[in-house]
């Protein structure tokens, strides 16, 4: 039992460390990359993966802390955490698309302006 606890601790810590590492890398990309497209590329992918790993760590933690292995409360929280991740994925995908792809028929002005803003 103690061995299982330690193993789960290691899993949680590894997932958290990997998740924060990905978020950190994404943030470095946001700060270091030269323009809008590359910045979006860094943030959208790395942050989603990082958030997913952190959520996975929390799910493991919640299921372990639940009083019984099939405690409905624990699974409820786990499902809510997953829902948060899915909504964040959806939001990032839609936001990145909106930022990266100019609206139809509006390729003038806006895109150029954004590009210059990014290079500053």
């Amino acid at each position: 039992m103690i061995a299982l606890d330690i193993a789960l601790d290691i899993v949680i810590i590894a997932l958290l460390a990997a998740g924060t590492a990905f978020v950190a890398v994404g943030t470095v990309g946001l700060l270091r990359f030269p323009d809008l497209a590359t910045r979006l590329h860094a943030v959208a992918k790395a942050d989603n993966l990082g958030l997913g790993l952190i959520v996975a760590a929390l799910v493991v933690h919640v299921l372990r802390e639940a009083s019984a292995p099939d405690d409905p409360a624990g699974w409820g929280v786990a499902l809510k955490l997953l829902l948060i991740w899915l909504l964040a994925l959806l939001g990032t995908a839609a936001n990145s698309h909106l930022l990266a792809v100019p609206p139809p028929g509006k390729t003038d002005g806006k895109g150029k302006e954004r590009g210059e803003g990014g290079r500053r």
Partner: protein
Amino acid sequence: MMPLLDLILAGTVLVTAVLAVLAPRRDAAASAFLIFGVLLALLWARLEAPDIALAEAALGGGVAGALLVDALHSRRPPQPQAASSWAARITGAAAGAALLAALLIGVRAVPQARAPLAEEAYARIPVSGVEHPVTAVLLNYRSYDTLLEIAVLAVAALGAAALAQGHRPVVRSRPAVRGLALVLLPVLLLLAAWLLVAGTSQPGGAFQAGALLGAALVIAHLAGIGLARPQGLAGLAWTLAGLLSFLALAAGTAVFGAGWLVLDPAWAPGAILAIEAILAVSIGAGLALIFLSNSASLQQNGPAGEPGRAAEAEPPAGAPS
């Protein structure tokens, strides 16, 4: 021993506050302020105020964020104005430091023990009609405050609507926006309904639910889903409905009951939930009206020859709808 995380949180709150205030560019200031708002929500959770954290996340992060970002598209980004003179800055900093010292001395003089009002608030919860103390304060003991708050919101919404230059039309937006909205709307509505009902016994209530409803209305409108028209007559009616029904309740209790807004424990639970439901819709309609009134001027009132800005959320006029 202070947990390290609290120190980091306090430090980042201070840094973002300074950035939001000092950043010379509007977009930088708005970004810093939005981060400040999210950190505040975390801070409220640390200060054992989950109700406030929920409201801050929905209003400070959501509605205020939409308002500020939308305002960045102002027609004429003003030239950086001449900075205030050094004399003014030094005087201001000195006055600020003096005020800070006075505040700290004053706050430290406040007695450490909990105010007697709090004991009374907890003692009277059984007759308040709800189980959650903050909801009891808002809608029973101090419902006058809430009545006046709704009045302020209604006046602000009317003022913003009066300043609007036309209605922002519902236009079919891009598929990515529509898809996101179609997923988000049910989630937001479910969350708002849950917060409303849960507010009687745990953190949540009319304000948080209203903020979410307002966000949902704005999202629906921007995505081209004409569920409700916050800028139409119905929207105006809903904005005023909260104030009017609250006034009706006050008048009813004054005439038939024990006095202005004195709720009988027998029917208080039902009355509170009913008034909260109306308030939530009213707050949502009011906030959506404020946002759409703000962005309406952007749509209509631009000089020609500046195509990139006005039509940002709009497809070409000929798009099928």
